[in-house]
């Protein structure tokens, strides 16, 4: 028999398990194999990163007008800074840049307001962002009303076009995806088979061929009178394609919700749409945030495929600039710039989704 009434004092942990040394020990040098790998990886990092930093920052040129200003042998960022307007605005008339800028300013203000936690009246701002802002953005970009001059879509390009494609694709594919996912799980056979067929057809076709069909084949079927803008056709293609993917992601979330949740909602007298909208979808969408954002990021990067149907998105316009005889030989700078811009947006989305997951976590298992 053991009786021990004395309370033992709390002692600090051994010094080799905490602090910098403890961290190094557990993460980098926990066994001889790990120590070896740490040394090898460290060596590879040093021999690759040092020249890269040297090229991109230390010996690079930032200020100037022509290639003659690039003298230090490193990256020639002058190429980017000289062409920056074109990379952002495409072939948009220079005197109308203020319209795009206004749109960007409104957009940034709205998105910042939505991200900051303490903003009052968030639902109102969200509704404004999703419903009113696209209308404002359309008239700012395209014009044709309020005395704004029309700017045809073939003049749109660069980052602006990329963002238009991505935002429209993201905002439109989510609701379509939700409807398709619900339809595929419906008990009505016709709805179910239509949704299943739609998803399987679009998911089984490469996006490039979708875009080709949208730009080349669709006009052949539609009579000559009804002219549909090439950008609109690309947007429809991208939205349909991505909503099929989205539907499958969301269906995964729906399947993870226990049957008891459906039953409890029904037993309380909620009808189908109310129980989906209030009980099932909020839980399923929250569960699927990583998958949904994954699809968004894929969509964002896939927008660069529109270059094959002659739309000049960011990548295409940089590529076009590279063939300018005045700037031959600076393709590395161009592609690094494009990659960096894409990365900033995608990383932003990824961080936001992680924040959202944390915020929505209410400390429970799914039951």
């Amino acid at each position, binding site marked *: 028999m053991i009786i021990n009434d004395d309370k033992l004092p709390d002692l600090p942990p051994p010094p080799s398990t905490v602090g910098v040394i403890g961290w190094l020990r557990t993460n980098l040098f926990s066994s001889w194999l790990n120590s070896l790998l740490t040394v090898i990886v460290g060596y590879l990092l040093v021999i690759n990163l040092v020249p890269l930093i040297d090229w991109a920052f230390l010996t690079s040129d930032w200020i100037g007008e022509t290639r003659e200003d690039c003298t230090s042998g490193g990256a020639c960022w002058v190429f980017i800074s000289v062409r920056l307007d074109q990379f952002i605005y495409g072939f948009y008339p220079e005197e109308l840049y203020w319209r795009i800028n206004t749109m960007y300013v409104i957009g940034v203000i709205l998105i910042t307001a939505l991200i900051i936690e303490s903003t009052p009246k968030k639902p109102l701002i969200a509704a404004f962002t999703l419903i009113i802002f696209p209308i404002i953005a359309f008239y700012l970009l395209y014009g044709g009303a309020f005395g704004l001059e029309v700017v045809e879509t073939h003049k749109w390009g660069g980052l602006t076009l990329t963002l238009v494609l991505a935002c429209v694709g993201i905002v439109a594919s989510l609701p379509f995806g939700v409807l398709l996912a619900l339809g595929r799980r419906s008990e009505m056979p016709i709805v179910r088979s239509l949704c299943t067929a739609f998803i399987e057809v679009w998911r089984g076709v490469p996006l490039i061929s979708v875009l080709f069909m949208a730009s080349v084949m669709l006009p052949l079927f539609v009579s000559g009178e009804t002219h549909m803008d090439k950008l609109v056709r690309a947007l429809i293609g991208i939205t349909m394609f991505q909503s099929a993917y989205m539907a499958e992601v969301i269906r995964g979330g729906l399947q993870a919700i*226990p049957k008891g949740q459906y039953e409890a909602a029904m037993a309380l007298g909620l009808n189908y749409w109310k129980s989906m909208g209030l009980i099932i979808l909020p839980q399923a969408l929250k569960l699927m945030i990583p998958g949904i954002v994954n699809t968004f990021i894929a969509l964002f990067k896939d927008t660069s495929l529109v270059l094959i149907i002659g739309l000049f998105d960011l990548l295409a316009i940089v590529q076009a600039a590279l063939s300018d005889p005045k700037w031959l030989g600076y393709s590395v700078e161009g592609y690094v710039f494009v990659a960096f811009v894409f990365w900033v947006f995608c990383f932003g989305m990824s961080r936001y989704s992680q924040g959202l997951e944390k915020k929505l976590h209410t400390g429970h298992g799914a*039951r």
Partner: protein
Amino acid sequence: MSTETMGVSDEVKIELKDVNKWYGEFHVLKDINLTVKKGERIVICGPSGSGKSTMIRCLNRLEEHQAGQILVSNTELTNDLKNIETIRREVGMVFQHFNLFPHLTVLENCCLAPIWVRKTPRKEAEATAMKYLERVKIPDQAFKYPGQLSGGQQQRVAIARSLCMNPEVMLFDEPTSALDPEMIKEVLDVMIELAQEGMTMLCVTHEMGFAKTVANRVIFMDGGQIIEENDPHEFFDNPQSERTKLFLSQILAH
């Protein structure tokens, strides 16, 4: 007035006539006939797979019956969605696994159906919800999420959530089977209180103490049939059928 007749009126609340149900080839409910009057408390017991849960789940159409008639408050359950929704508003249900909505707070769980189904103004719904949360003795947990509560507390919230719809009938599907022993009592106490206030209750449970305290009738089911139906004293002291005797000896043995 004895416990059995306390608060029971002649108004028929639930009526099952020759109800049959199959899961594929499996005949799960066989010729079920049962009449429940307003204010009656009925305990249903039986071995697992006997069809007792299926029967009470048919009463609010969580399961569909294939033959016979089910009437709840004189409305027949058919494929008519309107009827089903009317009945579900009048019939509250408490599940074995609570089935609270984990993304909503306790108070939101309770207010959701009154606001969206009954169109009660939010303020009023919240006041009612707090009243029922006080009755189940957890008003202090109103702003927590279900995941932060113990099993017994969750089940009491589930009862409060059903009561917020002001139901005429309450169905309990093994409400204490998923609880740790020390939490069973707090849930049973709430149910006993509810029974004493005259709520019409159908309760699938193996809590024989509960059955003896509040039930007007105990129903024993086996193999999809009602084997025996009697008042609790007769049922426990003087069971008639062999299967009931065997069942009782098994559950009372330990």
